[in-house]
Structure formats: structure tokens, C-alpha cells
């Protein structure tokens, strides 16, 4: 196993944050995604990252795993500066991170069992029987031991996400990144995923970072919320605390107001001018 974790209690007390982002700047094409973003994620916590669509929440997750390089600033995960890691060191770091893709990203050629077994088969030489037991344990944890022989095409969206979660935890990672884990789930599946995130955090002490929009779900599961907008961190705190904070950003975001710091209108030339009333039309 690549990572051995001390019990959850000691992790929560540990002072050094697991994830530390300092002065992150990223530009994709002509768009500034991050403009000096700073944040810290404590070990053993469940942290939600929220923000209007297109603010680069998924991009942030890709920075944490070294899939994307920043233009400036630093991203440290478990004390290691992700940008300076060699390919081998980066892959070894990734073995300690589980990543739950929004569309589950199960390998379509393999059954559920083989999908969960895939990382084990690639990185270990475990005897078949032990491997089988590990995979079945993980599938049991997500309630899908009975679906082990199904193919990904036979799964519902919620089941696929739970299989992806089983695959993400097969190495008992220190950190799981969830990219929009609640999108497209019916209320039952949503609650199942919520419960899993909480259980993994409690029982295994896994630090979780989730990118999501669902306020109600986040209030149930997250210890801390970071609100990102315009490339910066605009608010942070416990979910309930943030919901009552009186800043234009939190008011608009948590109140679900259509207009505010995030404008309703996409930037456009002057309306009257464009319609031909007064001045010259574009």
C-alpha cells in the first residue's frame, strides 16, 4: 500500500495543511482563471469548493494533481510542490490521491470488478485471492458487491459514480478529490454518495475536497466552504456561517440571486447603441 494513515483524530489535530495553494495564477487561452488564489485545506476535513460556473473549480483540482501547470504561484500537496515533481514522483503522489471524475470515467472495456481492480493490477503483484478480497471489500463499502460482474454500460449514473468511488479508494488514499459528485443524481443516489463521503472521512480519515453546487448537500457534508469568484477566494468558512455572512458574493451565491457581483448579463456593447437608438451601431 502506498500510504499508511494514522487515525483520523491525530490527523485532524495535525497543524500542517494537506493542501496549500499560494498566489496561484493561471491563464487558459485569453481567459484569466486564477488571479492570486490562496487557500489551505486541513488534514482530515471535508472541504467544499463553490463558485459560479466557469470560475475554474475543476481547473483547481487539476492543479492539485499536476494535470495542469500554473503560470505562477505554488501548489503543495502533502508538503510536496506539485509543479516541481518529477514524473515518477508525481505518479507516486497520485497513487495517494483518489480522483472522482464528474462522468465517473470508468474504463468501458472492463467489468465493475476489473475497473476497481485496475489500479491494484497496475501497481502491485498481489495474489489473485487477496486482490479479489480487497476489491470486494471496496465494492461492499459502496454497496455494489453484487454488481461486480456488470459492465459500465449496464450501470445507472449513481451506480457508476459509486463504482468510481470504490476505484478511487482502492489504495486507501490520503486525499479524495470529487469533481461535481452530486450532478445528475436522483435524491436517493445523492444521499448514498453523501453518506459515503462522510463515512470515508470519518472511518478512514480521508481528506476530501469536493467541487459542487448543491448547497443543501454541502451543508450536510462539508466542514468548510471556499467560495471562489473572479479568480480569487472571495469567502470562506463553515457552510452555515457562510450562508449568513453579509457580503455581496455570499448573498448572491447562497441566496441564489440572479443578478449581483456575478452579473446576469454577459458583457456586451451598449444595448441602446446596438439596437440603433442613438449613437452608432456595432
Amino acid at each position, binding site marked *: 500500500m502506498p500510504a499508511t494513515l494514522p487515525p483520523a483524530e491525530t490527523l485532524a489535530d495535525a497543524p500542517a495543511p494537506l493542501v496549500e495553494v499560494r498566489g496561484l495564477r493561471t491563464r487558459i487561452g485569453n481567459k484569466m482563471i486564477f488571479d492570486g488564489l490562496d487557500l489551505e485545506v486541513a488534514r482530515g476535513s471535508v472541504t467544499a469548493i463553490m463558485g459560479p460556473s466557469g470560475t475554474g473549480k475543476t481547473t483547481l483540482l487539476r492543479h492539485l*494533481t499536476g494535470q495542469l501547470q500554473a503560470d505562477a504561484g505554488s501548489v503543495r500537496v502533502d508538503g510536496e510542490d506539485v509543479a516541481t515533481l518529477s514524473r515518477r514522483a508525481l505518479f*507516486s503522489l497520485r497513487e495517494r490521491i483518489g*480522483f472522482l*471524475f464528474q462522468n465517473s*470515467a470508468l*474504463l*468501458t472495456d472492463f467489468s465493475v470488478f476489473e475497473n476497481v481492480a485496475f*489500479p491494484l493490477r*497496475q501497481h502491485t503483484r498481489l495474489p489473485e485471492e487477496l486482490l479479489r478480497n480487497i476489491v470486494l471489500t471496496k465494492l461492499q463499502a459502496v454497496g455494489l458487491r453484487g454488481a461486480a460482474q456488470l459492465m459500465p454500460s449496464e450501470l445507472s449514473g449513481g451506480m457508476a459514480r459509486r463504482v468510481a468511488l470504490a476505484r478511487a479508494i482502492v489504495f486507501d488514499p490520503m486525499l479524495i478529490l470529487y469533481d461535481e459528485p452530486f450532478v445528475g443524481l436522483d435524491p436517493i443516489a445523492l444521499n448514498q454518495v453523501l453518506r459515503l463521503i462522510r463515512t470515508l472521512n470519518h472511518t478512514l480519515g480521508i481528506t476530501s475536497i469536493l467541487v459542487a453546487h448543491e448547497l443543501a448537500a454541502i451543508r450536510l457534508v462539508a466542514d468548510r466552504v471556499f467560495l471562489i469568484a473572479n479568480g480569487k477566494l472571495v469567502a470562506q468558512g463553515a457552510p452555515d456561517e457562510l450562508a449568513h455572512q453579509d457580503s455581496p458574493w455570499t448573498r448572491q451565491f447562497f441566496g441564489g440571486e440572479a443578478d449581483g457581483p456575478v452579473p446576469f448579463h454577459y458583457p456586451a456593447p451598449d444595448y441602446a447603441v446596438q439596437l440603433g437608438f442613438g449613437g452608432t451601431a456595432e
Partner: protein
Amino acid sequence: MNARLRDNWLLDGIARVGECGLFFVAVLGALPKSLRYWRELFRQVWFVGAMSLVIVMTCGLFVGMVLALQLYYTLSIFGGTAALGTVVALSLFRELGPVVTALLVAGRAGTAVTAEIGLMRATDQLDAMSMMAVDPLAYVASPRFLAGVIAMPLLACVFNAMGIFGGHLVGVSWLGLDNGTFWGNMTSTVDLHKDILAGLYKSIVFGGVVSLIAVFQGYTAPPTSEGVAYSTTRTVVFSSIVTLAFDFVMTAFLT
């Protein structure tokens, strides 16, 4: 890639060729590691090779039959129909076998490889592998590339054999050429090195070219349905053009 470069289709094309070259180097670099995934390589050789057998055998048969029919007519003008077996075999070994097989494989297996990898990209499967610390170049790209290099010459041999069989069917069974003349002239004229092996070298190179283009197009396909469709088309177009261009160059050097 900066925006100005993208506006010019010529520069854009040259840049893509450069990207493909770099990709080729990366695929070669990942080859040693990809040998660990030998099961995947077997699966791909099966897919590119065995699954293309039907189309390659059928086309080989008909190409050989047409060839014999056309050449019989031409040769009869000069009273040289006895050379039919030789000419059919030489045309197949030296030219038609490698080239037509490459075009068929590009259409059947190349497009499937592009679409498969393109969809794996679009559904984040490649990213997921990379997140599980498995290099997608070694696990996905290199085995598919190597499978093409292995399967293509084998398929070309099958194509040639079926072609000669088709030629024999038309020449001997239908048009009444003497069986001994057909085989005798062929075996005494066709040279192992200059004809058979030269054709085999060609098809190894074509195998590399076609599978490299298919894998590259899939790997760099925009992650949309339109992007994957467009890349699949480009696989056939580029494979065909490059195969025929390489054929000319290699023929010039090998003869």
C-alpha cells in the same frame, strides 16, 4: 499553439506534422514500458489483425481475380499469356498487397482505433488512467501502434495469398491457362529478397504509418462528438495520402 498560427492552414498543417512527430517519439519512448501490458498488445493485434481478416481476404480474392482478367487481356495482345502467373504475383507482392492492405486496415481498424481513443479522451478515461498513475501513452497508445506494425505485414501476406488464389481461379480454372505454366513461371521469376521481402518491408512501414496516424488523431481529437467524427475522417484521409506517398518513395529506393 498561438492563435495567429492557427489561422494559416499551411502553417497549421506543418505544426500538426510536427506534433505528430513529437507524438511518435513519445510513443516510441513508452514502448518499453508498454511491453508490461502484453495482454493489451495481444488484444490489439487480435483486433487489428484477426478482425480484419474477412475484409482483407475478400478484397484480396477479388483484386487477384480482376488483375488476372485485365492482365490476360493485355498479355494476349502480345501473345504472352504464359507470364500471367508471374505478373499477377509481382504486382501483388511488390505493390498491391502492401498498399491495398494498408488502405483497408486504415478504413477498418484505423478508424475504430481513432474513435475509441477519441471517446476515451472525451469520457475522461485517459485522464483517469493518468490519475491512477498509469501512463496512457504506454497503456493505450503504444500497444495500438505496435499492433499495427505487427498485424499489417501478416495481413499483407494473407492478401497476397488470396490474390494469387484469385488469379489462379481466373487464369487457370476459367480462362484455361496451363496450371504448370502458371506456377512454374511464377516461382522461377519471383525473387524472395527483391520482391517478397521488399513488399513486406513496405507493409511494416505502412503498418507504422497507419497506426501512428490513427492513434495520434484519436489522442488529439477534440473531446466532442463532432471532434471525434472529424478526427476519424482525417485518419482515413491522411493514412491514404501518406501510405501512397511513402509507397512511391520506398519503391524508388527498394528497386
